[in-house]
């Protein structure tokens, strides 16, 4: 098969919708277009059937009961609902007071977790921000050390979206259950790609998104545990009491149906997909490491998901590298911040030097990535890094044996 350019390697940002998902959605635009909350006619019943089938499909993917799935607009909303909803529900004091409860999270979470936690700080909650070491992994022990008698909520992502590292999630979940603390995980980069069982993995609240797993954009889910313990949330969107009162608003029926189908496809093809992506990612990393000097694969050596590779190329600036590989769609740092000139806060927090953080690429592969595309990417990146190093004064200094970090630069 001929290689078609440009190549898409930004599957951690979003994925192409699977054509089988689109097909499942189509009838719900023009034939079964009813409001799932309409109880008096067949249009409403058809829509409700579609939504409830999807709920079963989503629940089956994560080992939950369908009653535990709340539809949202995506992971950002799921995270907001989980974190603000749980904190406000289990607060130890009324609004306007201090010491309303302790929350534990981590500095390299997605902004959709960091920002709600910052808001809760302003609302009188106390937040501990865990700083993981350079390998990026948040361990059970780090949480155990941070827990206090007034801890009400722990929110730790399952997989970091920039570096792909896997946190000790079942272990942290178990710990939280022992201590009677609500545990939320942003599982956006985990669910659909890796086996998930909310019972076995001791999850109370879990966010994930349709468009990261080959479903449509604008729809997500929040798993809310109903037994042992029953988790209650204060809604952040009121009006009509849809979704068991936790999330009002007419459901995005077409999106929900597509999301359900996407969950089903992930469950069926997960093992084969995972093995294939793992071997492609291994090849990509291995080849770049062997062909180029001063290359670093960021994150833990083994505890990483098979679809995300975050690689730093020393003494090369990231934006110019992206320009040199313009036929490869990928990101430099997080897609949400790539409009700014700042290096990734995730890499910065992990203590990766600025000259390396400035030159990191996140290459994320998916269901349609081929080996020919990986080969193309390896060659294009190698060529571009070599070209930019012939231009780089920092590369010359490095080759002369001068430590660039020890020079006093005139910042501007």
């Amino acid at each position, binding site marked *: 098969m001929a290689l078609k350019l440009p190549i898409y390697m930004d599957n951690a940002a979003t994925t192409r919708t699977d054509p089988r998902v689109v097909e499942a959605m189509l009838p719900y635009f023009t034939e079964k277009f009813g409001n799932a909350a309409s109880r008096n006619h067949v249009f409403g019943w058809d829509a409700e059937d579609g939504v409830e089938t999807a709920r079963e499909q989503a629940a089956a993917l994560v080992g939950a009961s369908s009653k535990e799935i709340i539809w949202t607009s995506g992971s950002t909303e799921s995270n907001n609902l989980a974190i603000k909803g749980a904190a406000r529900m289990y607060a130890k004091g009324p609004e306007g007071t201090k010491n309303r409860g302790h929350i534990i999270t981590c500095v390299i979470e997605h902004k959709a977790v960091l920002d709600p936690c910052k808001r809760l700080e302003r609302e009188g909650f106390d937040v501990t921000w865990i700083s993981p070491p350079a390998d990026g992994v948040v361990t059970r022990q780090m949480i155990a050390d941070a827990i206090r008698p007034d801890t009400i909520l722990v929110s730790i992502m399952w997989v970091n979206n920039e570096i792909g590292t896997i946190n000790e999630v079942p272990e942290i979940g178990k710990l939280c259950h022992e201590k009677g603390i609500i545990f939320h995980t942003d599982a956006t980069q985990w669910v659909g790609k890796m086996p998930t069982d909310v019972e076995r993995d001791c999850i109370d609240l879990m966010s994930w998104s349709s468009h990261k797993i080959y479903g449509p954009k604008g729809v997500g889910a929040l798993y809310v545990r109903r037994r042992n313990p029953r988790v209650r949330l204060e809604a952040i969107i009121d009006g009509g009491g849809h979704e068991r009162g936790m999330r009002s608003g007419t459901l995005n029926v077409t999106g929900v149906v597509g999301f359900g189908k996407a969950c089903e496809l992930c469950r069926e093809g997960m093992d084969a997909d995972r093995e294939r992506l793992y071997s492609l990612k291994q090849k990509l990393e291995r080849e770049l490491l062997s062909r180029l000097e001063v290359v670093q694969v960021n994150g833990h050596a083994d505890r990483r998901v098979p679809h995300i590779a975050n690689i730093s190329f020393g003494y090369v600036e990231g934006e110019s590298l992206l320009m040199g590989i313009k036929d490869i769609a990928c990101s430099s740092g997080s897609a949400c911040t790539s409009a700014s000139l700042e290096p990734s806060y995730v890499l910065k927090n992990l203590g990766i030097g600025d000259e390396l953080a400035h030159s990191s690429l996140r290459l994320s592969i998916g269901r349609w990535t081929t080996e020919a595309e990986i080969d193309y990417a390896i060659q294009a990146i190698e060529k571009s890094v070599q070209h930019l190093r012939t231009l780089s004064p920092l590369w*010359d200094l490095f080759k002369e044996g001068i430590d660039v970090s020890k020079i006093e630069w005139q910042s501007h």
Partner: protein
Amino acid sequence: MAYSDKVIDHYQHPRNVGSFGTSKDVAARRDIGVGIVGAPECGDVMQLQLRISDEGVIEDAKFKCFGCGSAIASSSLATEWIKGRTIDEALTIRNTQIVEELSLPPVKIHCSVLAEDSIRSAIADFQKKNGLAAAKAETDAAAH
């Protein structure tokens, strides 16, 4: 971000890339002025080396740049513009001219400022090495 054709051209075919020797070599040469501006943590470092005659004519210019495509293009363009010019002429080059020539968007104006700074810095280095007075108001204006 969309780059102008001129930026892409300079990025793909940068003019006058290189140096007149290692950092130690050029430090010892009185006919060469070296300017290094920017910082790695800001995402751009420009190095400009000028070979200047006794008469004050810039006979040759070489650059290296760690930075985005616009930074590379700005420094590449600067070398084209100053080769063969006198020191005084080179000091009249303004970052706004670079912005205009390369159609740089507002977020990339700092790249052109850096290129102007590198010219001033390299000339100042040459003047210092040769015990010459810095060209008065022009260099003061560069401090910002």
